[in-house]
């Protein structure tokens, strides 16, 4: 509130907080489901192979490629998952009017530092390119995880743009007095 004219300069966005929490929970569920269920399936001349996202991430298996496998798995699954969990950890107490959770500040800082390394949407575009490459080689079928991942990418982007970092930092700095 402006001290001079009492105009509301910024309103507490409890509703926005709940939206972010809802989206984050949805993303956590989707990430776990999408990485376990079959993602894509190809068949050619009677031979079928279906893979999950986990298989794709861990497909680099020989020697130094193992490092790459871990990195890919991290970028596609674990970093987005960790960011969502950190967001929930930070936001739930704030939105519910509780004192911030212990280490909430460090958690939020980590989550912000990890932002560029969360690459779910890039993986989605990678899928499109890979599909076109394989399309003439074999028949491609989509597993349930494919659709989950599609929804997931949209939600991750939505979650990122809903969240006002400025107000989160503010509420962490000045915890609500009970």
């Amino acid at each position, binding site marked *: 509130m402006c001290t001079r004219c009492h105009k509301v300069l910024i309103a507490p966005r409890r509703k926005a907080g709940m939206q972010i929490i809802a989206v984050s929970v949805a993303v956590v569920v989707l990430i776990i489901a999408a990485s376990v269920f079959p993602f*894509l399936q*190809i068949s*050619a*001349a009677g*031979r079928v*192979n279906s*893979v999950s996202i986990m*298989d*794709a*991430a*861990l*497909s*680099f298996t020989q020697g*130094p*490629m193992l*490092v*790459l496998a871990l*990195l*890919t798995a991290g*970028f*596609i699954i674990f970093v987005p998952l960790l960011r969502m969990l950190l967001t929930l950890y930070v936001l739930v107490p704030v939105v519910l009017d509780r004192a911030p959770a212990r280490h909430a*500040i*460090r958690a*939020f*800082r980590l989550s*912000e*530092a990890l932002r*560029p*390394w969360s*690459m779910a949407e*890039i*993986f989605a*575009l*990678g*899928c499109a*390119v*890979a599909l*076109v*490459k*394989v399309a*003439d*080689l*074999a028949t491609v079928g989509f597993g349930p995880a494919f659709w989950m991942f599609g929804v997931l990418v949209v939600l991750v982007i939505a979650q990122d743009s809903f969240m006002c*970092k*400025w107000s989160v*930092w503010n509420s*962490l*700095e000045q915890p609500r007095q009970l």
Partner: protein
Amino acid sequence: MVCMELSGTASTTVTAREAGLVACTRCTRAWPLGQQTCGRCGAALVSRDRGSLQRVWALWLVGLMCYVPANTYPMLRTQQLFQVDESTIIGGAVDLAHYGAYGIAAIILIASVVIPLGKFWAIAFLAVSVRKTGGFASHHRLLMYEVVEYIGRWSMIDIFVVAILSALVQLQGLASITPGPAAFFFALSVIFTMLSAQAFDPRMIWDVQAADDEAPDNG
């Protein structure tokens, strides 16, 4: 200095540094100069990162060194019946263009050749340009920095394509795709250039501008 306000005389911009303040680059809170860590989020506070350029160049060089084997070694090893095909990044794109998939060939060429090379050039340009005054408008330099930082992650698309293809195309005897050593180097190259871009301190751009403004305006 252009002033957007309608009232009064044009004022000059006061930088946080001149006002004796330093802003946290993580959470944007301002603190008095000399404070070591941000009291709000705990990130380290530096008004101007002196070692920034050194780190930028070191990471840039590693990224460039990884980019060379990424292009010379094969990226994909395709086995179809008894025929084994090894293709590099550029070779793969050329093959695709031969099959008539110009769109995909263009995406691959842009994502794994044009963008990485452009990124190397842009980071080098920024790092050189903050050393000398004049030349290029500061706002364009900042824009360039933001584009480089944003676009860096997208180069990983090639690695993901290789990962998907080599997990998916495993039809015993009929066709199989395995990743080549280039994938490893390419991923490293992308990661190091991302780190290099993050090490760059964009505030240096404005220091050069301040120096420019004191000299006759040529930006």
